[in-house]
């Protein structure tokens, strides 16, 4: 009887162990089957997918920077002309500097383009006599009233939307502080651009000033 009981208990224990294992496998199966294989493509929009996109964009950006640096290092398109001394340092600079040098060339070109547009407006715009006279008087007064130091007004000419000022500076300090002081003058609160130049020992600036509240006539690239 005792043997029979122990046999039955052993059978029950074995059955419970088998059932327990089957249950635990069943419970873990869904997770195991849904876990993506390492080689599987990430779902679109998932973090892993975004990560891949970021890596790809970074690689593309690095490639573009390399191409830009290579273009900056190329000599001017005249095969017969030997590279000038001014070009030589650019070619020997590290890529970072070459990229900056290329950006600086592009900036100067764009700046000249916009200044040329301002010059055209300054020469072709019709003159609004009332506004031009009163603004020229305001500009003259601003220079003589003590609000602007270290700079002298050589000439001023206003049209309808734009004034051009010729200014001579005592030193670099006068040039540095000119625009913030000038545009704080009541009645002269528009946009201003300063184009510096040196004639011998004279430090000069040409200032373009828009009508208060208006934009300077420059076509912007959006």
């Amino acid at each position: 009887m005792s043997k029979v009981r122990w046999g039955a208990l052993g059978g029950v224990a074995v059955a419970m162990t088998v059932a327990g294992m089957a249950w635990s496998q069943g419970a873990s199966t869904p997770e195991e089957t849904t876990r993506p294989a390492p080689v599987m493509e990430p779902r679109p929009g998932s973090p892993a997918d975004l990560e891949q996109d970021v890596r790809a964009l970074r690689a593309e950006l690095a490639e573009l920077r390399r191409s830009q640096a290579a273009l900056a290092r190329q000599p001017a398109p005249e095969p017969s002309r030997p590279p000038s001394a001014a070009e030589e340092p650019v070619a020997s600079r590290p890529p970072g500097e070459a990229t900056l040098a290329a950006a600086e060339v592009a900036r100067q070109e764009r700046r000249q383009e916009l200044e040329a547009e301002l010059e055209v407006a300054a020469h072709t715009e019709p003159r609004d006599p009332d506004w031009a006279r009163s603004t020229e008087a305001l500009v003259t007064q601003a220079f003589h009233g003590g609000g602007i130091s270290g700079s002298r007004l050589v000439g001023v000419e206003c049209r309808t939307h734009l004034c051009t000022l010729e200014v001579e500076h005592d030193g670099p300090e006068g040039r540095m502080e000119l625009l913030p002081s000038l545009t704080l003058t009541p009645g002269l609160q528009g946009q201003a651009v300063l184009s510096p130049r040196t004639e011998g020992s004279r430090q000069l600036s040409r200032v373009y000033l828009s009508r208060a509240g208006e934009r300077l006539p420059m076509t912007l690239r959006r």
Partner: protein
Amino acid sequence: MKTFNRRLTQSVAALALLGALPAAAGTATYSGSLCTSVSGFSAPTIFRSGRLLNQTANTIEVVCPLQRNVSTSFTEDSSFAAYVIDAHLTENVCCVATVAEADGTAITSGSACTTGADTANIKGISINLASVFASVNGYLSLRCVIPGQYTDTSGAKFSSVLSSFTVVE
């Protein structure tokens, strides 16, 4: 739980990678407390909120630094805004935004002022600069003139305030 942890880790990693990308041109807003007085001994008062007040009797002028959000590109257009309280009945809050080369030469600037007075409500001063001609090392700054305290007929004093300023490049 494991799946949740793994996804959380991936999300954090992806966000960290995105955050490491170079900052693109955009908007940045700063509190008035960053501005520095350039009016000799007249000093502004800074409140815990980060607002800058002129509690003196005289006009003060402050200069505020701005971060340029560009690297090597030429900035065609940039806008500035200052959020102020103009409490003075006869004077206005005026600001000048300037782009200067690294040596300090201001090469582009624009300015604007408040109109009228309002002792309670914030006003926006908007300035647009046509083109940021400066090279990559050029910098932006904002300079504001804040009138002194206004005293009304009953003797009550009202201060003008520079709360914050914004740059969009």
